[in-house]
């Protein structure tokens, strides 16, 4: 199940819900992404560190959900998953806020771990979300990382 929302999410409630949908699961993996105060996405130079005051998450309503559904479907085709849950927040967020949840349930841990990793890798580069970072100095759109695109290559067979 896919949700794109401004509101926060409760890990325990999501875990309980996923468990109820997952039947006889032997493994549940939950990944939570958080907004960091120190953001180095724009530069690899440690001297360029800039403290995030807030983030604004823009997305493409409609296409976002379609892409997330597609990524979840692809994961379900590669691994024997019993349930998948993706939540991505949009709008204004602050350091320490939860931004994304990816949870997968399977009979065995390897499938749950790998599929959650796969979903996150594709979500970062193939779902239409954009982050704008505001620091004390400026507001700027965060640029994509080459490493994020490279990390998709390991899933090609």
């Amino acid at each position, binding site marked *: 199940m896919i949700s794109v929302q401004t509101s926060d999410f409760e890990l325990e409630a999501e875990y309980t819900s996923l468990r109820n949908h997952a039947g006889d699961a032997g493994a549940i993996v939950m990944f939570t*992404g958080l907004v960091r105060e120190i953001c180095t*996405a724009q530069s690899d130079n440690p001297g360029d560190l800039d403290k995030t005051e807030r983030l604004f*998450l*823009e*997305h*493409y309503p*409609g*296409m976002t959900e*379609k892409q997330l559904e597609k990524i979840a479907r692809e994961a379900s085709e590669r691994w024997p998953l019993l349930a998948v849950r993706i939540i*991505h927040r949009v709008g204004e967020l602050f350091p320490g806020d939860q*931004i*994304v949840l990816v949870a997968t349930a399977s009979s065995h841990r390897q499938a749950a771990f790998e599929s959650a990793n796969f979903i*996150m890798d594709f*979500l*970062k*580069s*193939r*779902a*239409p*979300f*954009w*982050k*704008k970072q505001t620091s004390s100095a400026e507001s700027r*759109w*965060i*640029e*994509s990382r080459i490493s994020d695109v490279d990390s998709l290559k390991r899933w090609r067979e």
Partner: protein
Amino acid sequence: MITILYFASIREHMGKAKETVELTENITTVEALIRHLSETNSAFNQLCQSANSPLISVNQVFAEPSSPIVFGDEVGFFPSMTGG
């Protein structure tokens, strides 16, 4: 007529989130649409000259320059994605 949507840094650069374009018989592909927009809008032309050319979707699916465009389509232009 088609609808064009701009997102994130590209929306700010274009100064608008949305516009509509009348389809002529020359505009049958994404590539032709880009040519048309570059000729009629200097901000869009500037965008195409930059190192990070926009990603494109047609009807909310990733598209290529050769992808067809027909009446009623929704075309999106946006920068590389940075979710997660």
